[in-house]
């Protein structure tokens, strides 16, 4: 039997929605703040139950607070997602048709790429091929900046990938629309945008998952085909010496 919603739950939900994406430790602090503000019983290790209560009430609305793991640092993040969405409709009200088209094409480039990144040059070259309305490079640069600010994309050294928020919110959409191309991590089985791959059998893994899986191993081997794992495994020492 699902617990009742209290003002603390509502406050938490409102904050999550206005944040767009909330990092794990922030969410814990928010949980405490909400319980204290609305004088609701607080148990510091019961964040998951707290969220479940909210989710049971969100379910009939086809919404959910979902937890996703950042592909960069492996930390948990929370976002409110819309399960009924068939497209990038969450963004639909915030951007123009041509901006949405640029985003979709950028997402194509990112998902089809080897490493989950699309270079700024490649994206800007798309700008004047848009069907809705051609965009000048300067304008496209601005739009990309807004996408980064709004946490749909993240940028590193002039290259763009999908922000954790985007991945949490659009995972279902991506998995169904890019069925044959989108990679799933061999370890955690979630969508993998940035990934390392095995050169022999082609399976992919998230970098944080790679780190965890190969921790302490001097000779990392592919979990699927057992071939030597040729990529640089971050944070894992090779050749015997312990870090």
């Amino acid at each position: 039997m699902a617990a009742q919603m209290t003002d603390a739950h509502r406050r938490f939900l409102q904050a999550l929605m206005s944040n767009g994406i909330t990092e794990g430790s922030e969410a814990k602090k928010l949980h405490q703040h909400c319980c204290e503000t609305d004088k609701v019983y607080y148990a510091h290790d019961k964040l998951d139950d707290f969220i479940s209560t909210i989710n049971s009430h969100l379910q009939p609305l086809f919404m959910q607070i979902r937890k996703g793991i950042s592909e960069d640092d492996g930390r948990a993040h929370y976002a409110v997602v819309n399960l009924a969405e068939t497209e990038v409709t969450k963004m639909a009200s915030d951007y123009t048709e041509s901006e949405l088209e640029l985003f979709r094409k950028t997402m194509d480039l990112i998902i089809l790429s080897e490493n989950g990144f699309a270079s700024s040059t490649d994206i800007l070259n798309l700008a004047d091929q848009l069907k809705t309305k051609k965009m000048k490079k300067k304008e496209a640069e601005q739009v990309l900046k807004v996408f980064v600010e709004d946490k749909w994309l993240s940028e590193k050294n002039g290259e763009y990938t999908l922000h954790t928020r985007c991945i949490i919110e659009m995972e279902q959409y991506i998995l169904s629309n890019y069925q044959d191309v989108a990679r799933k991590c061999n370890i955690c089985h979630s969508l993998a945008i940035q990934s390392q791959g095995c050169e022999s059998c082609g399976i992919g893994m998230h970098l944080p998952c790679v780190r965890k899986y190969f921790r302490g191993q001097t000779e990392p081997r592919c979990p699927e085909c057992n071939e030597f794992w040729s990529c640089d495994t971050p944070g894992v020492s090779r050749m015997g010496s312990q870090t």
Partner: protein
Amino acid sequence: MSQRKRSKGLGCSQLLDGEDDSIPTQVERRSQEQLNQKVSELVQFLLVKDQKKIPIKRADILKNIIREYRDAYSEIIRRADRTLQEVFGLQLVEIDAKRHIYILINNLPCAEGEQLCRDKEKEKMGLLLVILSFIFMKGNSVKDSALWEFLHLLRVYPGKQHSVFGDVRKLVAEEFVRQKYLETTAIPLTDPPEFKYQWGPRAEKETSKKDVLNFVAKMQGKDPKFWASQYSEANKATT
């Protein structure tokens, strides 16, 4: 065999613009499941629209969500409002009964040091609060020129790009007005035409004269009772 029944009581006659005659409109035909679906869609529609603080027109609701369920309109709206209150702590409020315009307001009591808004929004809300305070303290209505003179003191100029707010004139005269935080009306018999600013309906619903007076008192380190007439007005006003 389909019939076209006219909906009753919702003033919908002018809204049935060239509807397809074959769409049935009997309320009894609506299953709970279908209604629930519409309620969910409406809740999401309202949340998305309100995220940008744009007031929602009934016409848009009918066109985009309700569609052929017009006969169940008030039922769907009622349930959506109840869901918004129970799950989100938000309330659907009609701010214009003639033109049927709605906003969502926050039902939850405001907490100290709460950061519900994203950073960009928090600063805009700060500026807005200052403007609302100025208007209230000056008797609920100020001339355009007086407002800008006041903002000059805060180094905010209508002609100049502000590092945080950007085009401030646009923010105050357009964005805040569009969001219904401020209302601007022309002062009659002025040439060149002058305008006055007052609180808009969203400001009336989302904050109170009492809160604003307390804010001013805090800023100036005085007791709210220091401003006798504003104090009595603020305490008279009911939410």
